[in-house]
């Protein structure tokens, strides 16, 4: 028992610093989301995307001017993965808003450009479909948070639920903020990653809470702050280990999974790092600040335990 009571790292004494750090990150994220927003992919904006691969390296300027002269105004042309592969993006426009657009681009490149291209991928999303996806994605996030709130309230206590949902909100906003600040493309797979971040970060938080609940019942002569601190220390190795193994596979995805998975892995890496931090410095401090105490958790169970002990 003595080992359990020694506090190795006093996490909570630094919670004011953590508060400042979180506040700064949140302000930057929200500020960026409000001013420049997300760089939404065609999944959400609607539009056309054509990925071509060539035998030799491609001069982007030549290709760009070729497209502009052919009337594809505002075409975004960039290398994708290597200099031999090119991604052409066309925003929705009324005149050219048809699925035939991708074929037109391919025809144009094949007939006018120095070397023929091979079609790797073509996507067309109508503006209405894009709108629906945005709406559905937002709803999915909202419903996920509500369901989790209900589950945690039911399994633990409402203060824990609020603490964990606050941590989730924190993680989601900062991950979105990261994509906004650096203007990485936000598409459907990134949205899926954000939802996976919710699952992951929650996983972390629940493990800590589970220990907090257990320790509240077991350790009698400690203040709530001390109990939380002990719990954080006890779960520390596990938190680090799991984050490390998850990060290992995410790095494998990031470097080897190909361009399409790239942003997905990036969102998860950011989310896992922020999620690990938040389960220590956001979820628990908020639960404490809401005034969680022994009495809130002990009542029912202790009666049970003591009844059990009676021979």
């Amino acid at each position, binding site marked *: 028992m003595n080992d359990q009571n020694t506090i190795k790292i006093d996490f909570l004494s630094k919670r004011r610093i953590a508060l400042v750090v979180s506040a700064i990150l949140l302000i930057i994220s929200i500020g960026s989301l409000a001013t420049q927003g997300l760089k939404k992919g065609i999944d959400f904006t609607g539009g056309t995307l054509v990925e071509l691969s060539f035998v030799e390296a491609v001069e982007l300027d030549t290709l760009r001017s070729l497209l502009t002269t052919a009337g594809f105004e505002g075409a975004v042309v960039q290398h994708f993965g290597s200099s031999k592969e090119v991604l052409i993006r066309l925003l929705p426009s009324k005149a050219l808003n048809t699925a035939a657009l991708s074929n037109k681009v391919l025809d144009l490149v094949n007939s006018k450009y120095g070397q023929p291209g091979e079609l790797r991928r073509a*996507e067309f*999303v*109508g503006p209405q479909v894009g709108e629906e996806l945005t709406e559905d994605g937002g709803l999915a996030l909202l419903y996920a948070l509500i369901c989790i709130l209900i589950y945690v309230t039911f399994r633990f206590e409402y203060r824990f639920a609020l603490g964990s949902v606050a941590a989730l909100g924190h993680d989601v906003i900062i991950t979105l903020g990261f994509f906004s600040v650096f203007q990485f493309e936000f598409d459907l797979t990134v949205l899926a990653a954000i939802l996976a971040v919710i699952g992951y970060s929650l996983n972390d938080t629940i493990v800590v809470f589970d220990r907090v609940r257990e320790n509240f019942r077991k350790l009698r002569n400690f203040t709530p702050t001390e109990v939380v601190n002990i719990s954080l220390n006890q779960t520390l190795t596990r938190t680090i280990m799991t984050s490390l193994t998850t990060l*290992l596979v995410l790095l*494998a995805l990031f470097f080897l999974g190909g361009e399409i*998975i790239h942003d997905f892995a990036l969102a998860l890496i950011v989310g896992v790092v922020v999620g690990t931090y938040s389960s220590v410095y956001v979820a628990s401090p908020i639960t404490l600040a809401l005034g969680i105490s022994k009495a809130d958790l002990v009542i029912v169970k202790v009666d049970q335990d003591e009844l059990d002990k009676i021979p």
Partner: protein
Amino acid sequence: MMNHFPVWKNLLIALTLVVAVIYALPNLYGDDPSVQISPLRGAVINSSLLADVREDLKAKGISAVKEELSDKQILLRFKDTNDQLKSADIIKDNLSNNYVVALNLAPATPQWLRSLNAEPMYLGLDLRGGVHFLLEVDMEAAEKQSINRNASDIRQFLRENKLRYLSVVISHNTINIKFRSQDIHDKAVEELTRQFRTWEFNPSDESASTPVLVASMSAKELKEVRKYALQQNIITLKNRVNELGVAEPVIQQQGDNRIVVELPGIQDTARAKEILGATATLEYHLVDVKHSASAAQAGRVPLGSKLYNRRDGGVALLKKQIIVTGNEIIGASSGIDSDAGSAMVSVTLDGPGGKKMSNITRNNIGKPMAVVFIEHRTETKIVNGEKVRYKTVVEEVINVATIRGHFSNRFQTTGLDNSGEARDLALLLRAGALAAPIDIVEERTVGPSLGQDNIDKGFNSVLIGFALVLVFMAVYYKTFGLFADIALATNLVFIIAILSLLQATLTLPGIAGIVLTVGMAVDANVLIFERIKEELKNGNSPQASIHAGYEKAFSTIADANITTLIAAIILFGFGTGPIKGFAITLSIGILTSMFTAIIGTRALVNLTYGNRQVDKLKI
């Protein structure tokens, strides 16, 4: 007896593992390049057809590695794609239009596994290459068409019943009928209500000098019109996709007004769009009975007549005069003729169409009448290196029947061989009727080279991520780490087995889900092992520590996994295509990892340490 599983429990775990291995096994065998021949329009598949095909191929020096014959198709497997492509061309040249010849990658699953219903995972379009279209039916146009048709029907009905009207005008979704007097108005309401049961007739709210009747479609009828427009388009699309020679096409309704079309393996997307976007119509003609079709075939086509091909083979000589066109068909449905007991198709024409039909049938009782199905398409072909777009028209006679009596806008085509033929005819009649326009609202095309790249990259990242985690766990947790590693490998087998059993679609995001599960699956073991370490540190015996470690970690693991599962299920519910694939593999992974990480490792720990004196645990 601490840390000991009873024999049955160990056996059960072993048995589950064996089942999982069997169902995961088909994924190791890969695919055979193959050609699939399936029948169209009542053509038959039998061993003599197979023999013919075999001869044709032999003449060109190609032979299939394996031939499979079933009622529905012939599948020929070849040793490489070169043979496959050549053979497909040869077979297409030699077979009539009544067969679909499609390239396919048939799974090379051995017979003993197939007899157990074990099949490999179904790869999504992003992995095998192909086109995904989302089409939207223009419902406003469908409603407008229906209103237009009814307006002309109402006009004709009023005229025929001597109910004099001043005007019949369409405004928005209603038809306004102006009458000279209130008397006629009242009588018209009575008669119209009886004839047009699916419509509602109300006096106009606006005060006018003359009485105005407002006709509007009932909500039920409106729903029917939309449903009909959607089905009509699905039927048309199915017919056309058959011509594209796709092995496993998917054509499905999505929501109230959308259709999903998935064409795996299609490379020429421009052609796919052209064929899907073709317009079809049909015409009723009288058969030219005065001249012989065979003479016409020899080159002597009489003036005023035209020679057509019949869909079921042979030719027909028809008069050029058109009785009615598909635009005048309101509906067609198949059923059983109550008098003769044979299959039949009921056709309903609109007012003007019925009138024309009436004029013709009155004077031609006992003569045959034919239905010609016409398809207009734009095709792009390369001529001298330049792309040329030209229009093609395909005309075919789909049915010939004798006029048995005088009829106008409602009639039956009877004497069809079976209900299948009746259904096909009704489908074609509907497909040829004026359809509501459809637009492509979403397209996702993945070229074959990208598909293969995606498979390779996905496979690589799973492998490397997996290896890293294995090493990490073994180094950190020693013997127990190895247990976790075995559990992790088993987990991967379970995920693949379940995906194969469910025939769920594996996509690139799905692979990402598997990778993520690999990372997260060890979480349960980390929790357990850390608990065991704690117990040891507190001075408990190794056996007691193992027991307590598993016991205490369980509720934490359950809580943590259930919350993640909630997120995954919501992803599945709200997500579309790519997100769904991710959610499926993530959910399956969470469930299987609970089994392997808790029960699987426990079995291994028990077998190693259980039931004996242990001084020290390597953890």
